[in-house]
């Protein structure tokens, strides 16, 4: 059969592996992805995880797995609808359909053990759901995964995933040697028998596919000449923190930030630092500030509810001008909200959370690669400007994996060693440069530098003052630093031409998706460009100029806004999405927004649809006007 097999060439494909939580679809998918990476493909993976600890098995809420977007070239987001789904049961597949993640013409590869299961309910739902696929135009390939697994090992529940890996490896023409190597590495710490069994399963699946499939996919790959890495955003944050010279990560567990701390816990002690799990988020930030104050770079990592608890200490960092980096891995809010899911809901609370005037820097990396390098930049800004820097990532960056050029760094990424040299007595602890607000920190232990750092209003000597002039002065100096930083920034780059009908403005992890949608729309002739803002505070220069090149400017964000047309919503009460709100104030231009809170990344096709609709509206309005004008002309 292997001989006259049809080979279907593809530029890219979106493949999902789904099972009940605990059945190992995720492991299979990750191995598959790693293989793709090693073969030189472009790659983006995202996790499909149940929102609960132990949802009932064989239900839609139990689905666990991975989506892999696999391509010939670079991939910047998780893409649209899944084209292939390999499912361990039909409910896992159904959950993906319900999430709107699956193409109508999907290829569903499914374990057919349920077709003949003892439980009539399972038989029924299996029949119904596979039937529905076909009637929507999809294809169903039934594979006796569990049965075949049982032929190879005793516990068919635990080994199934490796069989599936082999099967999919064959289908997508993955290199069997690489697959073997990865499986071996994965089980490296286990016994020989375990390794052998799993290799046997892998090969079993591969062979089974070879024997039963009459087609294979082919996705070419161009192995890169420079070293590449595959990792998720939280790992990139963790490694970036080390490259930046942080010696302490002080944290309290919270999803989806915790895995960054796990990554650091695994390696930091071996690299001269440590992770401190504090008793709560308030303590976590307090410890980090204490360490920074004393001269050792420390950061804290958290998510929404933790950010809320850190509010008071943020004010302290601002007032005392103690350098501090906070990473906020955004999740769905408000309150506990959707703890495992993505949202970009913390922009305004990062900017304005702390009472009083508390100027700070807010930056948002837009790719997993950026997560690494942004940490170096964040530490440097924090220390040079004696400021609080908030790094906003999100659940999508946190758990998504991308393949990218291995980051480079060197000693210049690291902070200078602690300076304990004596200072002339009377040196001021806040020796503000009146133009920039910058001043040099005194580090405890420096002879002659003894001074108090206080959260009360104070003068350059660090002494408490209550008079109007000194309070005004302190505020000015803290604010001025933001202006000074802003002067060092460049205008953001426009993705696409600098003029056109529509400009989409985004921030953070939506970048890849927006750019892809823009590409598609432009290919269809729509005049649309995009801009992604790395700096949210201060805003980069040149925005107004960029915006004025377009007939319409709108943000696309993964947070809430009232929609035009919603009941009661008018020009006067519409609540805009967070960046749009900011940009309206900043530019006084009528920046519109389209935003949603689906708890998952956007798909390029959704954004494409918005682009097309908006441009049609613009064109329509123009035609309307043109009509009116010609009418008016006709009347003359």
């Amino acid at each position, binding site marked *: 059969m292997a001989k006259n097999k049809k080979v279907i060439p593809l530029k890219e494909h979106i493949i999902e592996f789904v099972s009940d939580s605990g059945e190992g679809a995720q492991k299979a998918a990750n191995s598959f992805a*790693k293989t793709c990476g090693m073969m030189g493909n472009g790659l983006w993976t995202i996790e499909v995880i149940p929102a609960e600890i132990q949802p009932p098995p064989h239900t839609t809420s139990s689905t666990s797995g991975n989506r892999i977007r696999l391509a010939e070239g670079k991939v910047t987001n998780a893409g649209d609808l899944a084209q292939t789904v390999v499912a361990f049961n039909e409910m896992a597949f159904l959950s993906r359909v319900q999430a709107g993640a699956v193409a109508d013409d999907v290829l569903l590869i499914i374990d057919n053990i349920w077709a003949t299961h003892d439980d009539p309910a399972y038989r029924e739902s299996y029949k119904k759901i596979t039937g529905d696929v076909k009637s929507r135009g999809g294809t169903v390939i039934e594979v006796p995964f569990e049965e075949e697994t049982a032929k190879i090992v005793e516990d068919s529940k635990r080994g199934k995933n490796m069989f599936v890996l082999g099967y999919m490896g064959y289908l997508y023409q993955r290199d069997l040697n690489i697959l073997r190597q990865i499986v071996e590495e994965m089980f490296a710490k286990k016994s020989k028998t375990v390794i052998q069994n799993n290799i046997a399963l892998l090969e079993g699946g591969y062979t089974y596919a070879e024997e039963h499939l009459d087609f294979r996919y082919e996705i070419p790959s161009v192995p890169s000449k420079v070293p590449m890495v595959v990792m998720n955003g939280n790992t990139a944050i963790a490694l970036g923190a080390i*490259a930046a010279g942080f010696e302490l990560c002080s944290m309290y567990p919270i999803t989806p930030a915790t895995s960054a701390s796990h990554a650091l816990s695994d390696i930091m002690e071996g690299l001269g630092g440590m992770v401190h799990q*504090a008793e709560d988020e308030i303590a976590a930030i307090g410890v980090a500030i*204490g360490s920074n104050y004393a001269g050792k770079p*420390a950061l804290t990592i958290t998510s929404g509810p933790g950010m809320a608890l850190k509010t*008071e200490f943020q004010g302290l960092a601002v007032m005392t001008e103690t350098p501090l980096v906070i990473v906020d891995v955004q999740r769905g809010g408000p309150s506990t909200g959707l703890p495992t899911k993505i949202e970009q809901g913390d922009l305004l609370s990062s900017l304005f959370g702390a009472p009083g005037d508390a100027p700070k820097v807010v930056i948002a990396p837009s790719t997993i690669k950026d997560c690494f390098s942004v940490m170096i930049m964040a530490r440097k800004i924090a220390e040079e400007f004696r400021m609080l820097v908030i790094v906003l990532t999100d659940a999508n960056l946190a758990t998504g994996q991308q393949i990218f050029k291995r980051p480079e760094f060197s000693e210049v990424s690291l902070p200078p060693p602690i300076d304990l040299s004596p200072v002339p007595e009377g040196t001021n602890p806040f020796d503000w440069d009146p133009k920039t607000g910058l001043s040099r920190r005194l580090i405890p232990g420096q002879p002659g530098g*003894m001074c108090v750092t206080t959260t009360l209003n104070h003068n350059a000597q660090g002494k408490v003052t209550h008079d109007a002039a000194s309070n005004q002065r302190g505020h000015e100096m803290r604010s001025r630093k933001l202006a000074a930083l802003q002067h060092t920034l460049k205008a953001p780059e426009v993705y696409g031409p600098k003029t056109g009908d529509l400009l989409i403005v985004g921030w953070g992890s939506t970048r890849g998706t927006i750019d892809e949608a823009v590409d598609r729309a432009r290919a269809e002739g729509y005049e649309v460009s995009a801009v992604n803002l790395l700096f949210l505070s201060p805003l980069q220069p040149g925005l107004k100029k960029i915006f004025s090149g377009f007939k319409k400017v709108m943000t696309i964000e993964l947070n809430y806004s009232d929609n035009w047309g919603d009941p009661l919503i008018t020009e006067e009460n519409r609540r805009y999405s967070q960046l749009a709100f900011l940009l309206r104030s900043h530019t006084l231009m009528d920046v519109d927004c389209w935003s949603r809170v689906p708890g998952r990344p956007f798909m390029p096709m959704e954004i494409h649809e918005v682009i097309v609709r908006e441009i049609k509206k613009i064109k329509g309005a123009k035609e309307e006007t043109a009509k009116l004008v010609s009418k008016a002309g006709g009347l003359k």
Partner: protein
Amino acid sequence: MTVLSMEEFLEKECGDHNYELEDYEAEVPRWCKGCGDHGVLTSVQKLLRDRKINPEDVICVSGIGCSSRFPHYLKTYGFHGIHGRALTLSEGVALARPDLHLLTVMGDGDCFSIGGNHWIHALRYNFNATVIVLDNEIYGLTKKQASPTTRQGVVTNTTPKGAYLKSLNPLTLMLGVTNISFLAQTATWLPGHLDNTLNKAWDHKGLSFVRILQRCPAYLSSSFEATGPDFPAVFLEGEGGIAVDKGMLQKASVIQHDHHNLLEAQKVALTETPSPMGLIYYDPNVPTYGDIRRRRIKTLDRPGLIAGLNAELDKYTVKQQHG
């Protein structure tokens, strides 16, 4: 780092600095006349002078309250933080700079009310610091509200008909916390004993917690009514404990106490009248959090760190197979 001349070096590293009290004095304290805080400040300054400690090698961290103004009056490095969080800042300092001396000063509201969570966890971490609470049994700075140690029935601005609850006994609570290593009590009207207590605490490696009963003439002149000799106190005496100077003996009687015995300590702590003064519990063998953590940390130079990080990156590197 500036290179020191040999003379400077010798002076700094080996020289016997003879500091004066005023070398540790910053601005004139702004506490009320008769406030117990004054004496504690002096006691700390004397301790630093007697031990010839370089002012730059001390960090004094505080929260917010009258008591937390302490760092402003002490010419060392100081961090006047936010209400209730002094121990968190201190812990960061302790982790970062084991080479410095750390003194944490709080009020009773600061530590036992809003700061309660950090209080119990700091004791458990047992990081290396001398921690003192100036317990005037009232909120001073905000002008007379009840604190956890305000005695039942005391009229305050939030309890105009008298405080509702029996006052919290911070001593018994602390003795219940796993890893407690040093607990002592003294009072601002026992200056000699105060000095001895702070010295004993300073010598302890780990978190030495000293509760100092403190008079607040402004808002609770009645609290330790019979100031001085008449205040119902009892000194604890035990081997290696806090010395009770002869002069003190007129102020209260002495009992023998085994400060190594936790249950004994509990018993002593439970008695509030007379108030036990001295070393209540002491276990010099509890490891400090810093030591536990640092022991596991690999020391690396910069190239070593970069190499180590590269090795980590290797784990994520896909060696693309040109096939």
